[in-house]
């Protein structure tokens, strides 16, 4: 047996896994019957249906011929890592992390950190350019979101503002 479409094969497996997970999770709630559905009824059947669809997708991936095997190709780990990391750092700096006692650093610091980390996702990183970009973004966001739209963001770190 040969995988004829790599993309479909793994999509199918993904559907099967997620479907089973939801259906299995649903059984821990009261399922009930059609006339009196418990909280588990609808998710149970949806999960089962999804797993069935997953099986069908996997099956077609093994039977229907494609031209080039429909390969998934390389994962772009670098952008994936830095874009998501920049987003996480932004949250931590803006809101702080009370669970480990980290105070907030405010919008300005968060924007500068986000710009730098996100810029690392591209392979054309240039320190001076990114610095200018970060400052421009920080100033314009301060003006739009805090001065003009009056959103409730802390602008400066807790130890300065507080």
């Amino acid at each position, binding site marked *: 047996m040969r995988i004829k479409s790599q993309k479909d094969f793994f999509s199918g497996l993904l559907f099967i896994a997620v479907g089973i997970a939801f259906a299995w999770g649903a059984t821990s709630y009261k399922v009930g019957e059609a006339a009196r559905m418990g*909280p588990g009824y609808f998710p149970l059947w949806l999960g089962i249906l999804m797993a069935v669809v997953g099986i069908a997708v996997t099956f077609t991936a093994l039977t229907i011929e494609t031209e080039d095997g429909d390969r998934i190709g390389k994962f772009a780990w670098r*952008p994936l890592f830095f874009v*998501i990391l920049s*987003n996480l750092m932004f949250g931590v700096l803006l809101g702080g992390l009370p669970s480990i006692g980290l105070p907030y650093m405010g919008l300005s610091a968060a924007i500068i950190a986000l710009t730098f980390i996100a810029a690392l996702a591209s392979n054309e990183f240039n320190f001076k350019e990114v610095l200018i970009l970060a400052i421009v973004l920080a100033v314009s966001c301060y003006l739009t979101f805090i001065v003009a739209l009056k959103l409730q963001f802390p602008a400066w770190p807790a130890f300065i503002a507080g």
Partner: protein
Amino acid sequence: MELFSHLAVGFGVAFTPINLLYAFIGCLLGTLIGVLPGIGPLATIAMLLPATYALPPVSALIMLAGIYYGAQYGGSTTAILVNLPGEASSVVTVIDGYQMARQGRAGPALAAAGLGSFFAGCVGTLVLAAFAVPLTEVAFKFGPAEYFSLMILGLIGAIVLASGSILKAVGMILLGLLMGLVGTDVNSGVARFSFDIPELTDGIGFIVIGMGIFGYGEIISNLGKDASERQVFAAEVKGLMPTRDDFRNMLPAVLRGTLLGSALGILPGGGATMAAFAAYTIEKKAKMRPGEIPFGKGNIRGVAGPESANNAASQTSFIPLLTLGIPPNAVMALMVGAMTIHNIQPGPQVMTSNPELFWGLIASMWIGNAMLIILNLPLIGIWIKLLTVPYRWLFPAIVLFCAIGVYSTNNNTFDIWMVGIFGFVGYTFIKLGIEPAPLLLGYVLGPMMEENLRRALLLSRGDWSVFVTRGLSASLLAVAALMLVIVLLPSVKRKREETFVEA
């Protein structure tokens, strides 16, 4: 006439200076983000939604509608000038639009898209206003069984019209429905799939899903491509005005596109993309005038037809949302979320309980269309400049807008973790060739579907035949079944694949 008195109420609301200003800001921001390659209306709306939080509901909706049209229009500009469709509905515009741009006729192409869209928008607004009242009356006859069947019809529609594999679209809808169920069950109070995380008992935020999957997923995938694949060729634009000959060619295409778009927009599951594809197919079949440029080589009809159709459809797809409370496609699903944030439950009651909001929104759609044409044709130079900004400067800004958007929704860092996870998930979908739009539709419909299924079966004491013994419900299901059968017919299936491959 009643229609005009309604519209008068609407224009009274929409023509206040402050609402005109919000409509203008909405169109401007929408175009600004929509013009960026690789960012479609879904991501644009998700990103800009937080900008409307501080506004009163009417102004917020007016601004959102502006953002939506702006994003749609910005997408066509990118399609014509850069050969990159900003979104699925301008995929066909690329074919002839970019060819025109290469021949130095980008100006007329943009004008054709703009004028066609404006005309279609005007007609779409009238259709919307005319259909709203009668359809709302129908909506009050709907019981839970009818609502459930209608949602099935909508979901089947979304599956049939999805551009990729039908099976995968079904899978994504199911996944969306399941994700919509996460959180506290309204009937039993049980927190489902929340893993004892307090934030999850309120469900997964829809901004988080939209932003993670459509925003970050796209950005990562764009960055993963080689620089040459996302290079921007901003063509030169000389002279906007189409020639008289262009106008003569355009006019019938605009009319056909508008008609087709208005009709397809109303259908559940239909919408801008479907309308654009259908319009292009029809234009290709229509008789050529002597001396006309063939399709695929820069025929102006290939721009005017699909662009009018997608704008008419984006207008009329508000009909099912505003009258029945059922979003017909992913963009409208996002609108439901936006309305809910502003404490408006879309559905037939909006028109009676909030007439100024309802008609004001409709009137502002027309105003938004008018503004777009004022905004875009003279300001085209600015948008072209924007297209020449290197991607390495643009994407940190885009990432930032997403992050601010997510955080400002709840002022909660938990959402930021979630969006990180969904960014990864979204990128995985792209790599696996799964179209994510049906997921969002399923996600919004999930809780509604469960609720109506529950009620319908409670009333019938568990008898499933209730869905086929009630006339309205039975006919809705019949239409759904018919759609499914048609698309699975071997000849149609082949044709469908061809159409999507060609584009």
